[in-house]
């Protein structure tokens, strides 16, 4: 285990700051970009699903 945990930056019940991610989008078979501001404009729920690494056993 790591010696010191990173502090939780986003607390439950608070606003999530804007962020951007480069993506691969299997539906389009192409690369893309996601911004949180763009997601909010779509007025939908967002689920962020973190995992350690590709080619492992999620």
């Amino acid at each position, binding site marked *: 285990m790591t010696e010191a945990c990173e502090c939780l930056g*986003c607390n439950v019940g608070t606003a999530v700051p804007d962020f951007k991610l480069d993506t691969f989008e*299997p539906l389009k078979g192409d690369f893309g970009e996601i911004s949180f501001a763009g997601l909010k404009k779509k007025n939908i729920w967002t689920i962020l699903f973190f995992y*350690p690494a590709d080619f492992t056993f999620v």
Partner: protein
Amino acid sequence: MGAEIITVSADTKYVHLAWQREERNLAGVKFPMGSDPAGKLARMFGVYDADKGMALRGTFIISPEGTLLNAEINYFNMGRNIDELMRKLKANLHLSKHTVEACPAKWTNEGDRTLTPSAKLVGKVHEALG
């Protein structure tokens, strides 16, 4: 259900592409696969393991208004229960429309009993849930 799932790891978008095309278990994947190579987003959500350069198994549900409502973080060696994630998402959807209610621990589906906190309910949760 009106939710966008975004998976996030420290891999590049090129590796995401290679993995999704190679691994037959991922043939049905429809959600965008986000790339967080410097762990910036993982740090923002407190799931970055700096020694390993990888993100822990963190799941976060964010409302359409941009508020973080649920957080679940597992260590590397434990998978997540998708039924529980769906339960939380359904409960959030219900609560966003019924703002005075609360979903108890065993709430699993629309139609299950909820609690509406009030003076009368204090000490009477057992009776309210029947």
